[in-house]
């Protein structure tokens, strides 16, 4: 098993003249929970979408398990999009079966257990759920896969603090030693206790990549404080 699960080499992405990612070099190791942190428009979502083969690089390379993103890599990458992209007319139970039919590493029993623990009725349609419950169901579907890499784009956008705790706990308790979780977010203070490592990205470039405990020991301040300093407007 390769220790590095995702590798970017001189990765560039341009949108009609605007450079969203500039010559990005990055490697992500197995067995870590990593925060991908940066202000709006810094390239977080672009990077995650390229890793999921939803966008193609303008130049450079991204490798997942030594392969270009595609059908094979999607098998091992579980992706939580930053918007609700599931068919919302489907019932929760139907969505579970839908995921189970799509991914051979989907653990159906695990999904049902988590949904039952939340007392969400599997016979209701996704669109009738509250925003918080929609987010929870989506995360459960993603985390119920036995993947190598979990790419979570803004998993806690616009939900209340109790739901945030639930989401973080779901991530901790489903994370396995040989997989990695990448969480893109602005809510740094909320996630920093569960992160091994952080990557700061700004204007399509990596500004910093370090272990959270290193940052705290060396700088004597939290990642949240450091972020506010680095990205002061």
């Amino acid at each position, binding site marked *: 098993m390769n220790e590095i699960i995702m590798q970017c080499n001189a990765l560039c992405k341009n949108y009609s003249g605007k450079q969203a990612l500039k010559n990005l070099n990055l490697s992500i190791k197995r067995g870590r929970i990593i925060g991908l942190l940066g202000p709006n428009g810094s390239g977080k979502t672009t990077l995650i979408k390229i890793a999921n083969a939803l966008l193609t690089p303008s130049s450079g390379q991204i490798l997942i398990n030594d392969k270009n993103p595609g059908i094979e890599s999607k098998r091992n990458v579980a992706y939580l999009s930053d918007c609700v992209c599931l068919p919302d007319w489907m019932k929760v139970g139907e969505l579970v079966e839908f995921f189970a039919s799509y991914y051979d590493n989907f653990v159906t029993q695990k999904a049902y257990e988590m949904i039952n623990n939340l007392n969400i009725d599997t016979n209701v349609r996704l669109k009738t759920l509250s925003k918080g419950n929609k987010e929870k169901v989506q995360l459960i579907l993603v985390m119920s896969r036995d993947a190598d890499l979990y790419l979570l784009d803004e998993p806690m956008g616009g939900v209340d603090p109790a739901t945030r705790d639930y989401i973080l706990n779901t991530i901790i308790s489903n994370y396995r030693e040989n997989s990695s979780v990448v969480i893109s977010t602005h809510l740094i203070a909320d996630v920093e206790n569960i992160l091994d490592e952080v990557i700061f990205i700004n204007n399509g470039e990596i500004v910093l990549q370090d272990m959270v*405990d290193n940052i705290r020991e060396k700088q004597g301040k939290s990642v949240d404080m450091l972020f506010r300093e680095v990205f002061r407007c």
Partner: protein
Amino acid sequence: MQWEFNSDRAIYAQIIEQMKLFIVSGTLKPGDKVASVRELASEAGVNPNTMQKALSELERSGLLFSNRTSGRFITEDESMIQNIKNELAKENIENFLKNMEKIGFDKKQTAELILNFEKRG
């Protein structure tokens, strides 16, 4: 168990301190089994790797010992726990004295204040 973390120091170091507090305060008793890394991480809201690192450190210092088949336990060596207690007491007194000095009381004056405080009950 109630966990609290401040934001400017390494989390594993804070876990170690709090585990020590749980042990000297009797929340965790000598010979007690410690919950699994995953359970503790989830309870404290921290990364399982960080919890693992902290528990390994506590194991190295002898406060925890592990039994390969049945998990981790709190040391049964009461003198070791007493040592930790003394250490913590010393730290607290040092901090207290430092703070008293900041507001203008030297050690002797502070000691007097404490004695008088005790008498008044």
